[in-house]
């Protein structure tokens, strides 16, 4: 597997009940590729948190997963409101999620720090009124 494999998804922002579908699918794909379960779990958790964020905070977006020989890269792109203060957003417990999201089991302000914990690299690019791109990388193998 020297060429990279790419998976693309549209993440629907209209419907919270479908949020996370792309992550479930990726988990399946990575399993079929024979990637080890610890790596799969880290990728799944990070992507799922990011996918939920796009649905809750940005009205949906796109997800791309690149599987390379030694790493898996996840790129989550949205055209939502953007993040004003990224350092603040990265703090555990900081959340702007509305109450109805809390009653659905999310909105504790733990997603972004959890994404960072589960990945080897994470970059957030965001512009107010333009959108947010989160790029994460999980290294694996050798």
């Amino acid at each position, binding site marked *: 597997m020297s060429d990279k494999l790419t998976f693309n998804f549209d993440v629907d922002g209209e419907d*919270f*009940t479908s949020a996370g579908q792309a*992550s*479930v699918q990726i988990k399946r794909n990575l399993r079929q590729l024979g990637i080890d379960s610890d790596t799969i779990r880290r990728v799944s*958790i990070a992507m799922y948190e990011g996918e939920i964020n796009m649905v809750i905070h940005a009205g949906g977006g796109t997800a791309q997963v690149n599987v390379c020989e030694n790493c898996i890269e996840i790129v989550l792109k949205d055209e939502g409101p953007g993040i004003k203060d990224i350092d603040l957003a990265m703090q555990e417990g900081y959340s702007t999620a509305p109450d109805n999201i809390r009653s*659905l*089991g*999310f909105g*504790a302000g*733990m997603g972004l720090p959890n994404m960072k914990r589960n990945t080897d690299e994470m970059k957030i690019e965001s512009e107010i009124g333009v959108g947010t791109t989160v790029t994460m990388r999980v290294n694996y193998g050798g």
Partner: protein
Amino acid sequence: MKISTIKELLNAQILCCEENINREVFSACGSDLMSDVLAYVKDQAVLLTGLVNPQVIRTAVMMDMICVIFVRSKKPGDEIIELAKESGIVVMITDKRLYEACGLLYSGGLRGNENK
């Protein structure tokens, strides 16, 4: 502890994937906050929750859990059951409340994190 023992301790009803009830689990967690489950749970194979929506199952899938228990007799819809079936997750409901259900399993020998 076998999943079948959990069913007995909680006097629960199995809604899907009954073929997996002989699987062995070593720890469990109880929470209504999926944010917490995603951030803090490690290696627990069983989730007890009062929250009923598809994200509960997807969260369990992400965490490699194999059994989800809905407490207080909250019955999940077909969509939730279908999702669980796709991943082979045993789903049950019990009329116990979250605190009581967790307590019953804990005193039955199913712990949180420490002895995994």
